[in-house]
């Protein structure tokens, strides 16, 4: 079997690039770290927008990153019939909503504070633990109707005031997934729970079903 080709987009201010790299490597992927002005991304099976504070997140988390060439490229791929799986983690999820790839918005937590905690989530009929670490992670959408076609990763005990307990979204049609929790932090670290692997088992399965790999 050929290896999964993955790229991590390292924005200025991203700070979870290295551990995302290590986590993908632990799944035996072929991994490259690319810059946001990279335009040749069709060759990858998986594009990951990592966590962090792209461009400082001073204006609004994810706002400035949406102007990157790589985001334009993802748009192009979306319109064509080529298939690439896109995963946005934390700041990556914020970039995905700011860019309009996933509906809704991520705003300041209801507590108005950063929250670093292990949370229980439900996805694909399983409950498992993942860590969250964010300040702007409260998912907002007016009507549930708008996201009824998405698969939903749900908080069991909503930590940040997200509408409909939404921790993450997956759009099956476009193969785009956004997650506020950090799966990469619960995959490779000794003594830590390994909930992150459940997310990547799912992603690999989706890639297989859609003929990406």
């Amino acid at each position, binding site marked *: 079997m050929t290896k999964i080709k993955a790229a991590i987009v390292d924005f200025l201010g991203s700070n979870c690039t290295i551990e995302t790299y290590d986590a993908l490597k632990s799944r035996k992927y072929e991994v490259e770290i690319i810059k946001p002005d990279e335009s040749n991304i069709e060759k990858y099976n998986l594009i990951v927008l990592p966590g962090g504070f792209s461009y*400082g997140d001073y*204006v609004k988390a994810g706002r400035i990153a949406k102007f990157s060439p790589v985001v334009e490229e993802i748009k192009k791929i979306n319109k064509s019939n080529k298939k690439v799986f896109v995963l946005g983690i934390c700041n990556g999820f914020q970039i995905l909503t700011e860019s309009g790839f996933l509906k809704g918005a991520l705003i300041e937590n209801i507590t108005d504070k950063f929250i670093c905690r292990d949370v229980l989530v439900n996805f694909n009929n399983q409950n498992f633990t993942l860590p969250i670490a964010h300040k702007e992670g409260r998912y907002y959408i007016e009507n549930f109707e708008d996201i009824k076609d998405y698969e939903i990763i749900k908080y069991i005990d909503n930590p940040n005031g997200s509408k409909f307990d939404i921790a993450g979204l997956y759009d099956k049609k476009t193969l785009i997934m956004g997650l506020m929790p950090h799966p990469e932090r619960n995959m490779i670290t000794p003594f830590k729970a390994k909930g992150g692997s459940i997310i990547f088992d799912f992603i690999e399965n989706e890639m297989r079903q859609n003929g990406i790999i």
Partner: protein
Amino acid sequence: MKTFKFKIATKLKEEIKDPKGIVIEDISKKLEILNSPKIKAGKYYEISFEAKDKQEADEKIKLLAVDILTNPIIETFEVIESIEL
């Protein structure tokens, strides 16, 4: 008692580095939206409350701005609008 409504903006003092303003300057230059931009970021508040008269309202708003909305060592505030409802 009368009701007053204030619109107030706060920002870092002119000579103090404003990282948020700089990031917006940079991206607006990069995307060629603005020519040689100078941007100062700040915060905006709408506040309504009751007071005896305009003078008392002004005094109270100053107290709030200096004690709570800003640290006068690094920030300034500006009353953009004040109206009696």
